[in-house]
């Protein structure tokens, strides 16, 4: 049985994952955070969730550059699974730098809620959560 997390972090930078988790927990002890180090693992997890009809996390922070399957590849796979997903999933593209070509490419994916630049600080996170959970966190 999979426990439904609130937030999914997908990034190959383990330090980043560590920092994000810490920052999120500083904001709220209640939010459950799951992490994956590449897109492939994240896709496997999501398809497993849909198979077992477990609700997906409300927020996914997705890195662009990752081995095995990158952020774009993840989005492609996510699109394929979309029919089986029944709750709202907010996907944020995260990158240490966004090139113009990346921004343009990002606009092609309607599943993307937005993108943020690393490092993501507490204030930014609080704003995102406020928008999604409406003070309920």
């Amino acid at each position, binding site marked *: 049985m999979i426990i439904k997390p609130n937030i999914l972090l997908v990034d190959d930078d383990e330090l980043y994952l560590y920092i994000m988790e810490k920052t999120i927990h500083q904001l709220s002890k209640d939010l459950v955070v799951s992490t994956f180090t590449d897109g492939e693992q994240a896709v496997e997890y999501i398809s497993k969730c849909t198979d077992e009809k477990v609700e997906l996390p409300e927020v996914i922070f997705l890195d662009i*550059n990752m*081995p095995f399957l990158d952020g774009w*590849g993840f989005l492609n796979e996510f699109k394929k699974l979309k029919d089986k997903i029944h709750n709202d999933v907010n996907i944020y593209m995260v*990158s*240490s730098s966004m090139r113009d070509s990346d921004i343009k490419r990002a606009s092609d994916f309607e599943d993307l809620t937005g993108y943020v630049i690393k490092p993501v600080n507490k204030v930014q996170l609080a704003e995102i959560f406020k928008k999604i959970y409406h003070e309920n966190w």
Partner: protein
Amino acid sequence: MWKRILKMFIGLYLPLVALSLYVFASQKTKQITTLSEFQKRDVEIKKTYFLEQCNALLADTHYWANLEYPVNFDPMGKHTAFMDRYIELIKEITDYDQFRFIDLKGQELYRAVRNNADSITIGNLQNKENQQYVKEGLALNKDQLYLSQISLNREHGIIEKPNKPVIRAVAPIYDTTETRIGLVVINFKMKRVLDQLKSKVADTELYLLDENHRLISSSLHEEDLPYETGRVDNIFPNKLITSIKGITKDSTIIDDDHIWRMQPVILNGTKNSFGSISKPPSEIITPSNWYMIIEIPPRLLKKYLEPLYDSLITFNVIAIVGLLALCYVFQKKKTQKELFYKELESKNIMLTRNSDLLEENNVMVNEMNNSLEIRNKQLSDFNYLISHNLRSPVTSMSVIVDMIQKEKNPEILNQLLPKLDQIAKSITHLTEDINDYVSILDNQEVKIEDIDLKKLILEVKNEFTETLLDDTGFEVLINLDAWDHISYSKFYMQSIVHNFISNSIKYKRDNVASYIEFKSAIENKHKVLYVRDNGIGLNMERHGDNVFKLYKRFHRNISGKGMGLFLVKSQLDALNATITINSKEGVGTTFKLIF
């Protein structure tokens, strides 16, 4: 230049001069024809005049011959009264020089000789039986008239001075009983007639000749009948004699610069009734016919043709001057034009050369541009790589440091501190990788040389222990029929081949005889190298975009930094080569390198 002018001038002038000569000749002929037409009319008028005069005096003679004379006619004696009637008549007709009756023996019966215009002397009878005209007269029949030669009058056998050209008309006379009693002989003065003939309208010459070509009168001589005076040598143009031989009718002879017009004057054998209807016509007997000739002498001809000659010369002079000027101007222009064209041509050649040079430069600039573009892209990639990959550890570090400063809990601090070490390590790795990459970007130091590809592949192959052992089941196939030598960086090529062999060994499939094949080809004039293996392959749909990117790994179970193909592409890009991939999971991968 002058030679060309002369050549052109001759070319132009020759036909012109030919044409002018032709026109001149035809004009000359026309002039001469016109002249001879005038001449013909002139000679006809004169002939008619001469014939009229002859006929007039024949008519007179005819009148005398038809008088009815008394029987035993004695004009000096018993019949003076008969003669008295006629003496005034004889006196009036001033052309009569002598009027005589001669009996059948040749003895003069009556003789009237003119002294001057209004006096005559009668008498002083002579015997004329030996005279030719008397003999001819006595031989005449009733209806015949005799007209003698024109000759100088002689008295007692001596030519009378001044020369007096006369012609004698003779006719038989009869008495009332129709008995022949003698002859009437009239000497007509011919000076007036001959002078009239010789009178000139134009500057032509007139000749009157008898049948023996003896000159009776000519405008060349004041005195008539020069042959009778014994001056026959050289008085007559010899040419004329030879020219008129055999002429019987009106004809023209053009000889040298003379035009001769000849008209025979024929009286002998002609008949004339002298206006009488009742009497039969009389036959005229003459010892000789005449020729009347009008000559247009060279001086007249010249005078007529002079304007023609003048215009010919004027035309030719103008033509020569005009044509010479034309030729000079034309040739000068032509020479200038040729010079201009020559200059133009040399300029054209220079332009073509410049154009070639420009094109070369263009090609060079294009090549430079190409390599600059590639370099730009590489730099941009490098920039991205640095900013992306270096930024994340650095920002992470700053966050960790920030956390450490705020953290009081020693337990958590102990957790945080190793993270810094982790960051340091990742930065070190990154710097190493960047170093590798920069060494490729900075291809200034790359030495291009001729590479024996087969030798190079075999050398690289020997670096892998897997290929040395036969029982591992990995083979390196080399098929370089299309080409096996290439100008390239040996260091790069070794690195590229090393990465391909390394990858195909790393990602070989289990349970098959694994191999990698290097195959050369020529496509669109480019050297192409196919690198094919039968390894596990790649999901092209998922990873196609990322194959040649840094830190991209596609197989979780197999170790790798995600740098091999990134470096291969960089090394190919650096020397303007390209690489593409085609792969299928579970079948194998083919790379196509275009140099």
